[in-house]
């Protein structure tokens, strides 16, 4: 497998980029300001684009250069821009409805990363690749998944929920770049496109929420129960 036998420089570069992306997920978790979220998300996407370039270079997958360019454009520029427009429409610039304060969420997030590491390590041992970059990729992928779910659970602003979903997606994308760099190009392109459609749909729906439900917080959506 590709991620097991790597030159040391490549291995440390991949690890650096993966860990930096994970740290940015923590930046999102620890901040109340929506613009910070957006910036952290954009930078995270750029790091993932860099990771694609690095993997394309060291693993000889030229199609990953295309993926990197599209990731930077779509995830790094277009999506943050669309989200910024939604933020401006809403007139809300900070999270007001969190169920868990940012500091507590950081602690919970750290516990989730430990859990993710235990799972990834277990898988790594059963495959005989313990300690390789693949285990790190698996850890980061699962951690970002769990942190995304944490954000969905404790944040109330609709924009935070959209970003929570995007962190889930970024985690999967980062992990898949390292674990399965040879995944057919078509699938990756369609998933990128799909993400754009998702965000567009969310944009329309946020407008409906503001117009017809008069709120920008998912915590006010509690009429339908039972």
């Amino acid at each position, binding site marked *: *497998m*590709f991620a097991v036998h790597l030159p040391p420089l490549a291995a440390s570069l991949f690890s650096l980029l993966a860990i930096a992306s994970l740290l940015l997920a923590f930046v999102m978790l620890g901040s109340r300001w929506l613009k910070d979220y957006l910036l952290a998300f954009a930078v995270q996407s750029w790091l993932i684009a860099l990771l694609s370039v690095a993997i394309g270079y060291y693993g000889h997958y030229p199609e990953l250069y295309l993926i990197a360019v599209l990731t930077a454009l779509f995830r790094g520029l277009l999506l943050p821009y669309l989200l910024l427009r939604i933020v401006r429409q809403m007139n809300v610039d900070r999270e007001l409805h969190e169920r868990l304060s940012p500091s507590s969420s950081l602690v919970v997030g750290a516990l989730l990363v430990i859990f993710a590491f235990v*799972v990834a390590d*277990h*898988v790594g041992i*059963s*495959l005989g690749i313990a300690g390789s970059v693949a285990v790190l990729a698996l850890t980061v*992928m699962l951690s970002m*998944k769990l942190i*995304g*779910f944490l954000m*969905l659970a404790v944040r109330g602003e*609709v924009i935070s*929920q959209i970003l*929570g*979903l995007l962190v*889930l*997606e970024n985690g*999967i994308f980062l*992990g*898949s770049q390292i*674990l*399965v*760099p*040879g*995944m*057919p190009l078509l*699938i990756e392109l*369609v*998933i990128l496109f*799909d993400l754009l*459609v*998702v965000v567009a*749909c*969310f944009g*329309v*729906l946020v407008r*409906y*929420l503001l*117009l*017809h*439900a*008069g709120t920008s917080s*998912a915590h006010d*959506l509690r*009429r*339908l129960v*039972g």
Partner: protein
Amino acid sequence: MMDANDRIVGGLLGVILLAPLAAVLGCLLARRPRPAEYLNLTAAVSVLAAVLLLLPRALVRTLTFWHGYLIVDALGAWVLLSVASVYLLSSIYAIGYMRRLDEAGRLHRFYALFAGFALTTLCGPLMNNIGVYWIAIELTTLVSTFLVCFELRRDSVEAAWKYIVVVSAGISLALLGIILFYWAGSLRMGPTYDLTWAALRTVAPQLNPTVALAAFLLVLIGFGTKVGLAPMHTWLPDAHSEGPAPVSAMLSGALLNTAMIGIVRFLQVADRGRLGALPRLVVVSIGAFSLFIAALFIVRQRGIKRLMAYSSVEHMGIMTLGFGFGGPLGIAGALYHMLGHSLNKSLMFFGAGNTMQAFHTKRISRIHRVLRSLPASGLLWLAGAVAITGAPPFSLFLSELTIMRAGLAGVNAWAVFVMLPLLVVIFVGFLDHFRAMYFGGHTAAPAGAQTGGSAGAARAPVRESVWCVLPMWLALVPLLVLGLWWPQAISHYFSVVAAQLSGKAVP
């Protein structure tokens, strides 16, 4: 090599996919309600006709088209049949229902979305590449979100928001599972290959069991969210109860089955892998738990369409039990149940829609003496209620009996003893609500009559549009026929599906 049969199947496939697409474009171009109604209806009729012609041909052998991205197999064709039936029934019903909503200016958009929703739902079972299948499922969510909030009331927008957030988050777990399957496969097949169902089945025995098990559980939770299995069902009652009635029917009768086929196909992969008894145990447990949750919420339900929605959770649970028990009998029962549930749940949502429009409420406690207001559709709805609780002589009785027989023969027989009392509870709870709506309300009526003036027993019959009653007949008659007579041809069909799923027959 393409022979004549393959070419015919290819042509039918073209009709199934292009007719709804043409309807989408036509509705958007026409921009007027009437042409849009009939365009959508035409598409639905041609899709069902094509699927009926496709069924016997899918039985002959499994075919792939378009560089292996499309697959026509017996299992997929059966799901297409239930999707196409519901699409036709709800297209007929939508004409009557939507005309009363006073939304004529936006109606062409409704039909464009409706046909688009049908298109994505029809795509799901035909997808051979697992990644593309995931995308098809994701697209069904995106399109149907806007159908759920079409009326733009506060509640429906709330339901749409919860729907899209919960399902997108859930389904991203399925993507993670698919990536893990791809990774596990790439250790054997090399870094680049097409992750088709067949490829995954072939490589399944050589997959690392730890990774494969984790991947299977993620996929089960992910697609289980879309199927509406408890405890991932939370979006379902909201979305099903707040959309317009034809949309609810499509969500319940068509969409859930399209996601179910993913679980069935991954279960087949898990069987080939060295995963032991755990995958089936988890599937059966989730099915039984869905029944339990559904029973709790059905008994103390107050909203009429939420009652139907929890009944969908129940029936998806039963189907999951059937597929989880496995074996020819379990698969036959689950597939028979799928078609029966699709027809029956459409009937139930149509009846609920008629009642809600006649009584101007969705609360069960404000609906009395349905038969006085709705003599024709009221009677059909009552028959449907008896049918959906699994009473003879309707088809769900036969399929539930078959699933229980399959369960008793297998290793997870305990689930049958969980299922049986819960089915009785649901039977009593569900029909008690109907008793209240049809025959109760003697004491409550005066209060309602004084304040509202319209509620209660004093209502005159409402004019029932033929568009709203005809699809109810069209759903009830096959239910009754299939309940009295299980055709030999269908048994043969199911035995082929079961053989393909267990890997005995070479496709």
